[in-house]
């Protein structure tokens, strides 16, 4: 048996791949738009739905909050120490605080928080939803007159976003406090210069980019696994599972967001 190279076949394959890719992203965007509409509709927050949202909010953020905050604090202490000692060694003490805040608060903490929530909550949640859909659970809900998008999907997305924002902001505040202690010690004498330095770093543009980036991270982490669970991803030649493909897709999206934020901040 001979298999010759066919340009037509190759182009057809590429075209189908592009169409599939576009269709996949369109599905994600469409589901996201539906969820946004539902999120801003008061009818989505009836007593039952509100209860479901609260339950998911707690499951998303509550159990992981102490552990994540503690681990991030330890990680912050180590990284701050490294940055401060290096800056002192090179005689660049005036840039130590700047480097700490920019590296940790602006870049690392939102990324790590988003990844933590993705691994801890949204990807398992998406997998659960996928299995539920494959087992016909969503159709059963629809048959009972319950809209699965607002009853099962929206609470997960809102909870995932909330968890990312909460963990990121809390860790950022703790990191700012730890940076102050690492640079000035346990004294209030350096508060004025510290506040001034923080104020200089968080100028309006940086603040807006930081908020947008964290929000987009949260959206990507919360939406992509759920959106992937609601559609059929075609298996590729590899044996990579559908969940893992969704995870890779999420990482790529987060990378794009991070690059965009870096471009906005430093160019």
């Amino acid at each position, binding site marked *: 048996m001979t298999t010759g190279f066919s340009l037509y076949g190759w182009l057809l394959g590429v075209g189908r791949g592009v169409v599939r890719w576009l269709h996949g992203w369109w599905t994600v965007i469409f589901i996201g738009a539906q969820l946004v509409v539902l999120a801003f509709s008061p009818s989505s927050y009836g007593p039952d739905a509100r209860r479901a949202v609260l339950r998911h909010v707690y499951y998303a953020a509550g159990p992981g909050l102490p552990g994540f905050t503690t681990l991030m604090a330890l990680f912050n202490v180590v990284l701050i120490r490294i940055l401060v000692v290096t800056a002192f060694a090179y005689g660049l003490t005036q840039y130590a605080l700047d480097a700490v805040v920019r590296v940790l608060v602006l870049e690392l903490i939102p990324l790590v928080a988003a990844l933590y929530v993705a691994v801890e909550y949204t990807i398992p949640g998406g997998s659960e939803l996928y299995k539920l859909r494959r*087992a016909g659970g969503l159709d059963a809900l629809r048959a009972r007159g*319950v809209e699965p998008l607002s009853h099962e999907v929206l609470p997960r997305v809102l909870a995932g976003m909330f968890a990312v924002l909460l963990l990121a902001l809390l860790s950022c505040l703790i990191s700012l406090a730890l940076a102050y202690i690492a640079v000035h010690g346990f004294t209030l004498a350096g508060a004025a210069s510290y506040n001034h330095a923080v104020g*200089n770093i968080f100028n309006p543009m940086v603040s807006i980019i930081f908020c947008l980036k964290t929000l987009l991270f949260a959206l990507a982490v919360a939406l992509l696994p759920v959106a992937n669970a609601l559609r059929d991803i075609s298996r590729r030649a590899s*044996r990579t599972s559908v969940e893992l493909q969704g995870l890779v897709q999420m990482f790529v999206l987060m990378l794009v967001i991070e690059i965009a934020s870096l471009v906005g901040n430093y160019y």
Partner: protein
Amino acid sequence: MNTPPPDSPPPLPEPQPPALPSAAVAADGREPEATPASRRAQRALELRAALLLLLMVLIIGVAVLYLMWVRGAFEATQKVYLTTDDSEGVVVGMDMTFSGFPIGRVSRIELAPGGTVRIQVDVPVKSAHWLRTSSVYTLEKGLVGAARLRAFSGILDDPPLPPNSERVVLRGDVSAEIPKMVADARDVLQSVNRLTGADSALYASLNQVRTFTERLNSSKGGLMGAVTGNDADARRVAELLDRTNQLVKNLDAVAVRVDGVIRKADSQVLGKDGLVPDAQAAVRQLNALLQDVRHTVVKADAVLKEVQGVASNANQATTNLGDLRADVEASLRKIDSLITEINRKWPFAPKDKEVKLP
């Protein structure tokens, strides 16, 4: 040979349906009756979720307020406009420092109509008293780090800077000086190269010095050989030195003899019967003689005064004699006129009117 198509990997195990979170819905669509324990658990869970939401709101509020505060949103500011010819290194948000402390922040950079750069600096009112009318502003750009905008107030007693004042910024750019410095350094290095080259004057001088020191250290003549350049001259210098030494010895003997002569002269001149005591006695006698002469002169002076009195008396007598003569002449004229009158009245008067005195 059958190869599986690339789009159909081996099937994965079919996922099992998880338990529906809301599957506790009865088949007839009604909610089952919740037990009190599960209701309490549900309520506790909702309470914790609400607390988390509250924490989130609190964190966002604190963060926003803190950032607004550190950005100076709650403090009054006054504007200072700084003009310069180049805004390189100036960015919005950079500090203006005074003695190392940030007292203002650049809030705007724009091109002025004249082509200069206009930098707007917001200075908090509580820090504005550091800026005076005589303050100087500089924009320095170092090798490392960003440009620095600094204010200097030399005389703090001057009136404070009024709001919206416009001042000129003095620029100092270290990096601009580097090419010039490198060019200067290259010139210096080339000069040093020329100085230390094999055909340079310094090299020749050092060679001469080395030759000199070699001669100095050699056994032929030593210092004299090095100075004179040959052995014969060195020997002659050595002989000259010997003769000079002898001469000095002779001079020493002469000096001893001169010393004896001087001692004798001293005794003759300043001794007991020497020349000086006699001269002193002669001077004393001369002094007494001069005093006698002074007395004599005083006496002669008195005699002269008397002679002067006699002379003045004689002068006075001469004056009186003139008066007497004038009186006699007047009397004679009167007598003459009287005789003339008598002759005129007297008929017998002779024709000769001459009066003959006895």
